[in-house]
């Protein structure tokens, strides 16, 4: 009986991501065995490369669950990384961390105020700020790349290790764990879901709906800011192009991971698996030796199928 209820709880919407993840993994494991797909090094690399996307995906799960969306994270990443790099040119690591995270939080809060208190649609607000901050990232440094030479910073947010575990893995695990607990086991998470599910029900239950909207968009900014720090740490430089290509990856990861586009429902663990799945896909297609243009086409088709299947099950 216990087993039966356990199987029931593992509803279809979640199992899509488990099957998809497993199918892609097995496919590459079989076809790319001789190309080193299964080596510890390659698998670790996938986790390292997806760390920023996974962390942004966590923020997006909260935004979508509250019935909002954030598209601006694609350019918040670059602004945060550049802000951190510039701050560390003449200052210690703390300056970089404060500048990077601060930029993310401020831009997120800016989106949040427009959405929560002026009731502008988040889709339009964050589409506009995506462009706005992409422009600001370009003009901040005249399109130049800014090196990050602070070793403590690059160790902490990039190439460092703790007890043999790469710091990016630690960041990923910590962020997913914290995100999951906040989402599933805190009052905040419950209120986010209620607002996205039925904003009126949330309001008459005494939940401060605008505050929740402000907070999820600020959280998105913060996760994009952290992603910016991770990029700057791993690449030891910041450039306006950072995060540009993450927009589609992160949205696809979150949707494939079982988060509803219209709010009230989602999964942080699903988003992690979705993000890893996107990472495997990138990695496998490169190892297969496909041209960049062919990679884009194949990836696009696979994402389309995956998103279509997940949405069929996520929709009510």
């Amino acid at each position, binding site marked *: 009986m216990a087993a039966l209820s356990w199987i029931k709880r593992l509803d279809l919407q979640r199992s899509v991501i488990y099957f998809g993840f497993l199918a892609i993994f097995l496919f590459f494991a079989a076809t790319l065995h001789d190309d080193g797909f299964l080596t510890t090094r390659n698998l670790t690399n996938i986790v390292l490369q997806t760390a920023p996307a996974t962390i942004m995906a966590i923020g997006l799960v909260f935004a979508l669950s509250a019935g909002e969306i954030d598209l601006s994270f694609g350019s918040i990443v670059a602004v945060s990384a550049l802000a951190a790099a510039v701050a560390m040119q003449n200052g210690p690591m703390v300056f970089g961390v404060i500048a990077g995270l601060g930029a993310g939080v401020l831009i997120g809060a800016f989106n949040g105020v427009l959405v929560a208190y002026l009731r502008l649609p988040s889709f339009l607000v964050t589409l506009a700020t995506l462009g706005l901050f992409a422009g600001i990232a370009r003009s901040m440094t005249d399109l130049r790349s800014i090196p990050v030479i602070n070793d403590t910073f690059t160790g902490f947010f990039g190439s460092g290790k703790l007890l043999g575990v790469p710091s990016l893995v630690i960041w990923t695990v910590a962020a997913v764990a914290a995100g999951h607990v906040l989402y599933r086991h805190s*009052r905040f998470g419950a209120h986010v879901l209620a607002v996205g599910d039925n904003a*009126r029900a949330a309001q008459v239950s005494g939940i401060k709906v605008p505050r929740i909207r402000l907070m999820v968009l600020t959280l998105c900014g913060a996760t994009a800011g952290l992603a910016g720090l991770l990029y700057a740490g791993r690449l030891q430089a910041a450039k306006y192009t950072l995060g540009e290509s993450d927009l589609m990856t992160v949205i696809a990861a979150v949707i494939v991971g079982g988060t509803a586009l219209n709010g009230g429902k989602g999964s942080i663990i699903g988003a992690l698996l979705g993000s890893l799945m996107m990472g495997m896909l990138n990695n496998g297609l490169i190892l297969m030796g496909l041209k960049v243009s062919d990679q884009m086409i194949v990836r696009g088709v696979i994402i389309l199928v995956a998103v279509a299947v997940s949405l069929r099950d996520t929709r009510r």
Partner: protein
Amino acid sequence: MTATPVLSLNNIHKAFGGVVAIKDFSLELFPGEIVALVGDNGAGKSTLIAIVSGLHRPNSGEILLDGETVSLSDASSARSRGIEVVYQDLALADEQPVFMNMFLGRELTRKPLGLLDKSRMRRETQTMLDQLDVHIPSAGSKIRDLSGGQRQGVAIARATHWASKLILLDEPTAALGVAETAKVEEIVAALKERNLAILIVSHSLDQVFRLSDRICVLRRGVQIGVRSTPETDKNEIVSMITGVHA
């Protein structure tokens, strides 16, 4: 009656832009009393409920709870004073489990981390539903998987559990079958025993006459009158609602 009314509304006025929804409305509700609010569509019944539940501020007029003037600025302020509402649209979050809806906005948490105490909310929800004889597959079922009657049962159980003074019910049996309606009426009648004051909006005059102690009639925002249920009849109420004298 010499007891202090639980709720007194004095000269309440509410307009939306140019539309006057409630005009100069006054009513007193006493503990253990059921008052029915009747009127045609658009008469202003839901607006009045929204005013007492803190969702709308009246343009003028006074609200007194237990004889004290209060300002109900939002849903929390009404809830914290023991007022609960079963809304016309039920106000349930469809994708969330029953127990989370039961505790929406006042979730139980566990020390020391302040995380949700889901197992306790589940248990207490089951007890609340059992007490009212509302049958659902489990306290963990999603609202969306419940029937109309079950949803109504959840919304009513939620209100009756948390209310300590006053319950407002906006058409609580509108979507229900005969058996479910009888069940809801039984629950409402039982609330009298708990000495709660009850304001019920209903389009069913049969129901109004079965349940209420007094009947208050609204027509296009105007309070036409209040009658003691045993001293009136359907014809009088119908003509008050419609303005047509038989």
